[in-house]
């Protein structure tokens, strides 16, 4: 299939962001069904929401830098950690890699021109923006911003006088967006692969996105109905979670975590896929154990949907359930460990080039390992009793989500930036930013692990004097970390405007996106390629001894 690519006067292809098509200006962006433009829409919005939530976090750290009231009242603090969680989880971390990098690169990685359902793709973005607007409106609506924590536990979410229905309805809408994105990704992967692109020649980033999409489709509806039930309970008092009417508040927790645990795999699987794509390129060596990594993505997606009760060990659920969920939680660590071993084996005796994408991917592995190991401490019943609802948990999930998914996202941005925008960033500055970020991150969140172990409860506005030095130390780490974030994004944004032009394949990658121009033209490929080998075969590989 040869397309008639738009060409500029010197014969080179017109990049997707200049190709005006039938609509001028902003309309050409918000009405476009081109997967690359939709990806950029998501990128701009998600980064804006990310920095909004980071700001909320900074304010929280200022408040907690010293005991007693510092800059806000307790009620404000409750709303801050709630909104920080809602924005980061539902507006940033869950959608980020699938909607930005999945949208931009999935069609290119499999050798096609667009997603299976381009108009549905644009509609997903409209739903996403609707959810975002509703979240922000809910902050200012009568009653005040929501203060239940992002987990909306009953009975408090049924009784608090702030506007809960609007906020949870916003999350419901965001869930619909996520489901439709999942449907698009699964269908695209099954139906639109280029000739010769069998499932076992797919880049592992595609396996990551594909496994994630199944979780999006099957798990998200459960939180959708749960959120509707909160609204129905508040308005009509049906009684399904109300003990006075025979209801069981623990059933809310079951329904909530049936989605929200798999949700963390929605967050991490695409990031793991990115790491699996990046390491072979910067080790100039085929990935070790391709099939093991591919199947481990499916295993994590499926077994990860069976462990939700580990959030409820001290909630009053039965001992039987706790034991079963604890066992399953230990099981789900196995496929993740397989990935870590295979990544290390990929790097072993490779010809390593230390570049920013590699550094961020490496940081992912380290931070994800710390996060994963602290997860096992919580997965064991006896130790969980000690650390549940403390800063230990908060440290754990920031290691996993921010250290894992976040650094995975940063790795992906640094890896694919030249392809998306046709420019290269300052690699030295990117490395400096990485150092600042890594140091600040660990200063911040390792202190949380210590604080939690010492008994500091989470979501508390105030604390006894004995925690104040650790709290201050954590806050300083947080501000250093934010400095690293600003440096990193400042570097990328500067490169967007002023960076050197980047070639089609600056890193020497072997996957399909590196064979088209940087940035890609609207139709991606002039001719749909025929694939005859795996995604990590490098010409000079024979020179590398195994």
């Amino acid at each position, binding site marked *: 299939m040869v397309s008639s690519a738009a060409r500029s006067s010197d014969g080179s292809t017109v990049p997707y962001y200049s190709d005006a098509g039938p609509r001028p200006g902003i309309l050409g962006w918000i009405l476009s069904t081109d997967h690359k433009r939709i990806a950029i829409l998501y990128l701009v919005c998600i980064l804006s929401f990310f920095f909004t939530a980071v700001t909320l976090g900074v304010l929280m750290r200022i408040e907690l830098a010293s005991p007693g009231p510092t800059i806000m009242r307790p009620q404000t603090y409750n709303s801050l950690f709630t909104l920080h969680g809602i924005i980061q989880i539902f507006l940033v971390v869950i959608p980020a890699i699938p909607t930005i990098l999945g949208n931009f690169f999935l069609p290119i990685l499999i050798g096609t021109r667009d997603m299976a359902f381009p108009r549905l793709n644009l509609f997903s973005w409209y739903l996403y923006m609707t959810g975002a607007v509703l979240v922000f409106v809910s902050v200012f609506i009568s009653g005040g911003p929501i203060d239940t924590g992002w987990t909306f536990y009953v009975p408090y979410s049924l009784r608090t006088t702030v506007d809960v229905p609007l906020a949870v309805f916003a999350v419901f809408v965001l869930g619909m967006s996520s489901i439709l994105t999942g449907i698009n990704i699964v269908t695209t992967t*099954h139906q639109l692969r280029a000739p010769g692109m069998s499932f076992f020649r797919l880049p592992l980033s595609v396996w990551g996105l594909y496994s994630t999409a199944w979780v999006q489709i*099957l798990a998200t509806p*459960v939180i959708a109905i749960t959120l509707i039930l909160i609204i129905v309970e508040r308005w009509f008092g049906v009684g399904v979670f109300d003990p006075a009417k025979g209801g069981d508040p*623990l*059933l809310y927790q*079951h329904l909530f975590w*049936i989605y929200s645990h798999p949700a963390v795999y929605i967050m991490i699987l695409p990031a793991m896929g990115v790491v699996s794509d990046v390491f072979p390129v910067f080790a100039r060596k085929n990935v070790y154990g391709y099939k093991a990594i591919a199947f481990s993505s499916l295993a994590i997606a499926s077994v990860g*949907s*069976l462990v*939700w*009760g580990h959030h*409820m060990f001290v909630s*009053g*659920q*039965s*001992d*039987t*359930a706790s034991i*079963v*969920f604890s066992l399953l939680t230990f099981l789900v660590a196995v496929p993740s460990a397989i990935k870590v071993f295979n990544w290390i084996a990929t790097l072993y005796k490779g010809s390593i080039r230390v570049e920013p994408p590699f550094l961020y991917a490496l940081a992912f592995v380290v931070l994800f390992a710390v996060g994963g190991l602290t997860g096992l401490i919580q997965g064991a019943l006896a130790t969980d009793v000690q650390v549940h609802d403390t800063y230990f948990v908060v440290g754990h999930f920031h290691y996993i989500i921010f250290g894992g998914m976040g650094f995975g996202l940063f790795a992906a941005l640094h890896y694919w930036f030249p392809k998306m925008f046709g420019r290269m960033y300052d690699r030295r500055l990117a490395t400096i930013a990485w150092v600042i970020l890594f140091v600040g991150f660990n200063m911040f969140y390792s202190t949380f692990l210590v604080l939690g172990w010492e008994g500091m409860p989470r979501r508390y506005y105030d604390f006894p004097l004995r925690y104040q030095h650790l709290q201050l130390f954590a806050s300083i780490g947080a501000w250093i970390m934010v400095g690293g974030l600003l440096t990193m994004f400042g570097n990328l944004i500067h490169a967007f405007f002023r960076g050197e032009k980047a070639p089609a394949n600056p890193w020497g990658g072997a996957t399909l996106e590196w064979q088209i121009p940087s940035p890609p033209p609207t139709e991606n490929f002039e001719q749909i390629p025929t694939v005859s080998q795996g995604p990590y075969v490098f010409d000079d590989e024979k020179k590398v001894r195994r």
Partner: protein
Amino acid sequence: MTIRTYILVWAGLLALTAATVIAARLELGRLSIYTVIFIAAAKSTLVVLFFMHLLEEKRLLFKLLLPIALATLAIFIGLTFTDIAAR
């Protein structure tokens, strides 16, 4: 598929509906809920295979979709019952 097949399926569904109403009237005790669920499953199978054309689908993917969803739901309910039934 012929129109005759559709008519037979429709008649079968109506017959099974009558059967399930009758079964509920009989004093089957504990067996009662399993019977009505079984009949409901049978009716759904007819709808899925014939009205929704799943019998005609050749690709493995289509045949796996419903089992995956139902297994997922069964596991969600089953694991929840490790709590409910043991408290």
